[in-house]
């Protein structure tokens, strides 16, 4: 891999930028790999990278049916945070946030991690109690959390309507200062480039159409570009986990739902924090291009369509203009949808599956992007050791049958309610 640096930038600038090498190869798939990772998004590419980097397993292929990062890696709202209450989630996402902090250096690729802070607004006394409790739990787990009063919020986010006459009056907010945003496409590209440099084959336009299972053990995959023998197979296809696991006859506690996001036209800097409100189901940040990136709730019906309908968009925009009246002057530029694996307890499934040598990382609900580095790290560990890493030991598929669900929201087994 040719390292990116100020010197390579100057050198290539002087030669007209026509000598940059391709960031990764596009090899024909081989007949056999030690590990096949299904899904060329952030999670699959990170899995392959950590398999090669941490475990020396380099005869690895990443199979992607479309193009790299064309699924949820390119459809999220780029937010990273670790402001969880329950211990399994808190430790897992905090590990992920620590990986984010040094990821640009580790990959020699600028993923533009921006610790601009993630602020959860509080609109009611009961919500205040819950936020303080969660903030204290975070601090006990070694995660940064700070409660801001309404006056502190009004001073730092002048566009936010903090008046007592607001439609949803703001009482305060829980801030995680190290939370923020990361350039989502760069995560896929950075992991792809670094994995490729370690010998991983990245194969795009190669859809897995079947899993070969013999005597309860997975032995390979069938693809649109031929059959491939595999020692182990990792599934990283969130949104379609049920479909791929189903190829091995495995049913999952997951429903697929569409979640929409949208951006306004680009404007000059107006918002330097990620602002969220659980009460009105809304979150917003400003991208480096100046667009306001917004999202809210699911469309609330099963979908694999990667597009949603207007009522969900209207709900997001309604929440936006009630919190930020001045944003009502903007026009929406673009909306899109991604397919979420909604699990029955709102937490992911990372680990071994009931077929030997078959593993998965999925079930991310709303929050897969921020988990990308940790998901790849522990998924790779689980594949290499055939047992979970301590950080994903609680995220098993068996937890549902064992009554050990990790239900952060307390919503019960209604996947669209998480």
């Amino acid at each position, binding site marked *: 891999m040719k390292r990116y640096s100020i010197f390579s930038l100057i050198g290539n600038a002087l030669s007209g930028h026509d000598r940059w090498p391709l960031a990764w190869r596009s090899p024909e798939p081989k007949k056999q790999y030690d590990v096949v990772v299904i899904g060329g998004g952030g999670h699959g590419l990170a899995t392959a990278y950590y398999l090669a980097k941490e475990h020396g397993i380099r005869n690895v292929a990443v199979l992607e049916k479309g193009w790299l990062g064309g699924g949820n890696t390119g459809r999220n709202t780029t937010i990273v945070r670790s402001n969880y209450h329950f211990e399994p989630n808190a430790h897992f996402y905090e590990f992920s946030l620590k990986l984010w902090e040094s990821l640009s250096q580790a990959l020699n690729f600028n993923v533009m991690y921006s610790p601009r802070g993630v602020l959860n607004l509080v609109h009611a006394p009961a919500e205040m109690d819950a936020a303080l409790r969660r903030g204290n739990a975070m601090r006990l787990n070694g995660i940064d959390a700070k409660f801001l009063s309404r006056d502190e919020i009004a001073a730092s986010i002048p566009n936010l309507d903090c008046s007592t006459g607001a439609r949803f009056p703001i009482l305060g907010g829980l801030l995680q200062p190290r939370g923020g945003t990361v350039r989502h496409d760069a995560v896929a590209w950075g992991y792809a480039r670094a994995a490729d440099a370690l010998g991983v084959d990245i194969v795009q336009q190669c859809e897995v159409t079947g899993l070969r299972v013999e005597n309860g053990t997975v032995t390979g995959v069938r693809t649109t570009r031929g059959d491939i023998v595999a020692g182990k197979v990792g599934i990283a296809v969130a949104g*379609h986990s*049920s*479909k791929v696991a189903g190829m091995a006859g495995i*049913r*999952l*506690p*997951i*429903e*697929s739902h569409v979640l929409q996001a949208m951006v306004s036209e680009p404007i000059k800097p107006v918002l330097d924090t990620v602002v969220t409100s659980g009460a009105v189901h809304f979150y917003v940040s400003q991208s480096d291009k100046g667009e306001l990136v917004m999202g809210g709730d699911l469309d*609330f*019906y*099963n*979908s*694999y*369509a990667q597009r949603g*309908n*207007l*009522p969900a968009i209207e709900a997001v925009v309604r929440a936006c203009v009630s919190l930020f009246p001045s944003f009502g002057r903007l026009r929406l530029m673009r909306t899109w949808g991604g397919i979420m694996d909604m699990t*029955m307890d709102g937490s992911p499934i990372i680990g071994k599956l009931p077929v030997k040598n078959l593993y998965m990382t999925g079930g991310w609900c709303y929050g897969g992007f921020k988990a990308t580095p940790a998901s790849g790290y522990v998924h790779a560990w689980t594949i290499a050791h055939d047992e979970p890493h301590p950080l994903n030991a609680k995220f098993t598929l068996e937890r*549902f*049958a064992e009554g050990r669900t990790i239900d952060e929201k307390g919503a019960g*087994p*209604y*996947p*669209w309610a998480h």
Partner: protein
Amino acid sequence: MLLIPCPWCGPRNQVEFTYGGDATVRRPAPDAPEAAWVDYVYMRDNPCGPLDELWFHGAGCRGWLHVLRDTRTHDILASAPVGEPLSR
């Protein structure tokens, strides 16, 4: 926008409805083995294609509907009152 054909009210805007989820899930007998209950509470087929599902017309006739909808396209293929055969 989903236009949901309510058997009693005709085609209506989706905002009048609440989603009730997979209509094929059946409650097991009280003495069924635990695995059957785990399956009932947690496991879903989650098909990529036509899905039998329940909708509640809360802002209309307050009736429950059985709807067959394609999860790839959102096209509604058929609907009926719960428990009656689907009409297209």
